[in-house]
């Protein structure tokens, strides 16, 4: 295997691996759902605001959506902490390596998200201040959406890179890692999922009785808004299935198995009846929009679960050999380290029986870095000190206790307040011997 095999952290896992994996899958699903709503919401808010230039009701709708975005974005961040913690625990050797390899972009996530969040607040809290300058207001929303679109690409690049240690030696920075097989396909699949989920969310949200009063939409307009979201959900589902197939055929073979294949197709398969119901609702205006809604949501919930499990299975398959090799290397390394410790201990024991000069010992510990036998290091060498202080141990001790600076171009010697009188005497005796 021509793959770098690093050593793992030599401390036990804090919990059984299986428990951590279950926690990872569950917390990741919660995180990604809020991320989808944050990104999709931001895009829909922008889209509706542009539409609102011609049709004022859509501007009110855009404001309502912007309010949901700021709630979803806060939850997206906090929910992301748990999967991040577990990834750090379970995949330390791989995750830290891939993070370092795209380190610049990875570190940029923090300021980029902070700026995106501040833009989201500026967009929401100053809504009424932009009445006369819609270009600027829409510009802020566009910038916020662009950042929300870009940040997931960094994540996707990292979690993809950590799966394939064999690619690590080829990677030179973030952009070369983006071009690895499967990153861009997965990214498109992700973005369409964000549109799908937020479209479904807003289709439900706009159906609540309070919504109509809050946004002040007429009944017919409310229906067309809901159909607008529904149409997006329908289109995004088709795109999901197609881009999912592209992702499937381009997945590197390292992680593939029949189990993964089955889960992926089952997950995609749940979308087919959902599509059928959505289509029925869209072509037939007589059917109330909510009739099949809970079934559709149920199906997509199954899709998410199947996909999340498949994703984890794929990762485990892809890293199986690497994890095993790392475990072996770590065990061997720890044995070698223990062996060397023992060797060093017995050498130290053997040395213990030899007589030692306390002055020499204290000299080595405190003075040798700067005062060499014959080399001019930081301070004067031993010969010079000997010339100055020969027969004057008291003078040397006084200098050590209260040193000054003798040479223009060198550093001043620090005091040694922690050394006792006896130690200083021993050092001086040793130096002047």
């Amino acid at each position, binding site marked *: 295997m021509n793959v770098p095999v690093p050593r793992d952290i030599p401390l036990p896992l804090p919990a059984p691996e299986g428990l951590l994996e279950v926690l990872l899958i569950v917390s990741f699903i919660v995180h990604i759902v809020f991320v989808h709503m944050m990104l999709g919401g931001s895009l829909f808010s922008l889209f509706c605001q542009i539409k609102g230039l011609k049709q004022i009701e859509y501007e009110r709708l855009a404001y309502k959506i912007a309010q949901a975005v700021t709630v979803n974005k806060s939850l997206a961040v906090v929910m992301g902490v748990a999967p991040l913690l577990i990834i750090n*625990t379970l995949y330390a050797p791989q995750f830290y390596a891939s993070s370092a390899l795209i380190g610049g972009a990875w570190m940029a996530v923090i300021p980029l998200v902070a700026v995106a969040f501040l833009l989201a607040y500026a967009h929401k809290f100053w809504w009424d201040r932009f009445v006369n300058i819609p270009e600027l207001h829409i510009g802020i929303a566009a910038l916020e959406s662009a950042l929300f679109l870009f940040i997931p690409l960094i994540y996707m690049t990292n979690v993809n890179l950590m799966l394939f240690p064999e690619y690590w030696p080829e990677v030179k920075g973030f952009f070369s890692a983006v071009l690895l097989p499967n990153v861009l396909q997965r990214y498109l699949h992700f973005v369409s999922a964000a549109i799908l989920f937020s479209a479904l969310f807003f289709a439900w949200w706009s159906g609540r009785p309070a919504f109509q009063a809050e946004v002040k939409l007429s009944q017919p307009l409310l229906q067309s808004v809901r159909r607008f979201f529904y149409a997006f959900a329908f289109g995004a589902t088709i795109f999901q299935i197609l881009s999912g197939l592209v992702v499937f055929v381009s997945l590197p073979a390292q992680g593939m198995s029949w189990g993964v294949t089955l889960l992926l197709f089952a997950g995609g398969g749940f979308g087919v009846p959902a599509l059928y119901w959505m289509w029925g609702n869209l072509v037939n205006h007589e059917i109330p929009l909510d009739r099949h809604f809970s079934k559709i949501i149920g199906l997509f919930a199954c899709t998410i679960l199947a996909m999340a499990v498949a994703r984890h299975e794929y990762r485990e398959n892809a890293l199986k050999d690497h994890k095993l090799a790392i475990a072996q290397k770590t065990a061997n390394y720890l044995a070698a380290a223990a062996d060397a410790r023992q060797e060093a201990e017995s050498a130290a024991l053997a040395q213990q029986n030899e007589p030692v000069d306390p002055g020499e010992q204290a000299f080595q510990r405190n003075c040798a870095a700067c005062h060499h036998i014959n080399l001019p290091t930081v301070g004067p060498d031993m010969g010079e000190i000997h010339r100055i202080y020969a027969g004057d141990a008291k003078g040397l001790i006084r200098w050590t206790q209260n040193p000054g600076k003798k040479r223009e171009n060198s550093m001043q010697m620090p005091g040694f307040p922690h050394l006792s009188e006896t130690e200083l005497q021993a050092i001086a005796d040793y130096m002047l011997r």
Partner: protein
Amino acid sequence: MDFPIFHIDFIGNRLLIAVDAILHVLINHAFAIGALPIVVLLEYTGIRHGDPRWDTLAYRLLKVVFIVTTTVGALTGVGIWFSAALVNPAAIGSLIRVFFWGWFVEWIVFVSEVSLIMLYFLSWPNSTESALAKRRHMRFGVMLAAFSWITMAIIVAILGFMMDPGDWHERQSLWAGLFNPMYLPQLAFRTSLAMVMGGMTMMAFGYWFTDRDTTFREGLARTICVWTALWTGLLAITAWWYSSVVPAHMLANIPVAITTQAYTDWLANFKWVLIAGLLFVGWVLTDSLRRPGRLHGGQYVAAALVLCVMLGQFERVREFIRKPFIIGNYMYANGIRVADYPLLRRDGILKHAVYAGVRDIRSDNQTVAGREVFQLTCTRCHTVKGVNGIRAQLVRMYGDQRWNADVIAAYLENMHGARYFMPPFPGNQEELTALAVYLASLQNRAQSYEGVQVTGIPKPDHVAASTHYGSIPDLTHP
């Protein structure tokens, strides 16, 4: 040690993490932990006096807290993980293994905290409808303030552990790590500091949000300043308690360090800056109690800034005196375990480093090999030409006389004896010589050191790709 090395030569790793962490701590102390009790206090005062101005002001202050904490505050918190994982993966990876459940609980508290601040903030406009709704609403605030404090209470355990793990070495359990000797004093100190900072910050904003010469502003100054003054008294006591538990070797070894003469002076000044800062804050507080509402708003801003500087300096000192360890007595600041030193000193670190490009040192590759050694042993704290640059250190030591590799090697060998904050050199003699040759070469042509995010990693060789270890029999194939 066994990770690809991320490095930015201009700002350096330490500054990268310091900027993020200090920003986080300032926001966290001043805006989350310290400010929320004040918002609740003002809301309560509004209920007591039946005066809607208190409520309006409390809501405006909460809006500031809400925006700052949910954007920069929350993100820099996550950023500490991002940057720590890049700067010293071995250390953060070890801490995560020890404190996983601590962090997991903290995450649950954090989720509750964010949910509560949204609930508290977003439901505020509706809460003014009735007295009952208002009292119920205030409960969210009390819970929010409690949860904000709990997140800090958990994190402080980990910070204390890094300074002094106590008896964790013997027991290696989460509880032993959690209740380390530094824990309670540091928590008490940070709690009172946060309350004082919150008081000053909210007073500065409150001043800005109220009108001149009104009895309302007087009442505001009196309410916030009484609360803050009580905590300032506690701050002085807890600061003394905290400083009394800092392990003696950490305090005593500052003066040992050569070339830290400037630092020791600075430390002595720091004590006076601290006292002067506290006196200034105390003066602002007593003055605004004596003539409430008459003080200039700039004085509150100045007091808040003084506290920020004090906290920043405190974090710096705390980070510095922990050295040479990143986790007390367990792992050095270079990311290498104390227990691994004998092996690396015997065999050399290049023999064991997966991502190293050179394995054997010959006379013709000493500089290249030395650069690799520099990468593995020095770059967690030093850059070549940027912040805490090694070149500037050498200039300070040897000036413009010709840098001599033998002289530098003699220094490196014993440097940890004189400079207590430096870990001992972890490699073998050949590597020490190569490092000295590389360092001496920096005098003429110093090229910045770029991390793997720019250069990538070398092609894996037989050491990188193998799973067994030199003379040790392969344990995996018995």
